[in-house]
């Protein structure tokens, strides 16, 4: 696992969470710019998924098991888009809160990924 990529994804996820949290604070729904932000974070998670799978294919082993590692990679990739779609269905501040929660969840998943890989 690339530690730098994990850190970058976590930071981006937390930034997204703060940004959408701010939108919610101002009683605004998610807007185009937020969706671009979600796209960036999702792209980072996708790159991480690819890098992770490539490293597995090379024969490197995560410390806590391949299945769990792949499950977390997929989960972290799906996390923000899922929250994004829910915010499309809920065009109020609560949609923004949901995306903010999605960002926090992704950051937690990144920490877990780091643990699972073994530092």
């Amino acid at each position, binding site marked *: 696992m690339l530690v730098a990529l994990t850190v970058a994804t976590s930071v981006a996820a937390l930034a997204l969470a703060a940004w959408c949290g701010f939108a919610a604070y101002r009683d605004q729904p998610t807007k185009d710019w937020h969706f671009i932000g979600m796209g960036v974070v999702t792209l980072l998670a996708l790159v991480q998924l690819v890098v992770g799978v490539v490293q597995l294919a090379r024969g490197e082993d995560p410390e806590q*098991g391949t*299945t*769990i590692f792949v*499950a977390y990679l997929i*989960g972290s990739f799906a*996390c923000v888009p*899922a*929250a994004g779609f*829910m*915010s499309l*269905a*809920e065009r*109020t501040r*609560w*949609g923004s*809160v*949901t995306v903010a*929660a*999605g960002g926090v*969840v992704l950051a*937690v998943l990144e920490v877990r990924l780091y643990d699972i890989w073994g530092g």
Partner: protein
Amino acid sequence: MAVTGTDEAPAEPGRRKLITGPGILLVWLYGVMVVGAVSRSAVQISTDFGRAPLAYTLSALAGLVYGFITYSLVRGGERARRAALVCCAAELVGVLGVGAWTLAEPSAFPDATVWSDFGMGYLFIPVLLPVTALYWLRRSRAATRS
């Protein structure tokens, strides 16, 4: 159910939604917990069930309860609201019971469950979620009445 009036129409569009406003956040968090608890217990039960059968079974049970609550919230309507209310109460009892149990008798749990130590491993979301959901579901009824 005369109390609720308008939302009892059998047709799909007539169902009162439970996922508007804060409800959407609840669905999201419950969805995350479903994925977390179900996938976790699936991996643990299929690979190493013998190590901590009680803990893994409890995690699977938690996953089922979360799944049902999520489904009820998405489905909406008065019956689903009541079903979700009952499940959230059961969930709260489960979290508090299992949480206390893991603290009182750690030897029964060689490995953690979703509800160990009141859900500490999940940022206490397991114990905060049912409380919030109960509040939201009760408020939904109040809103229907007025």
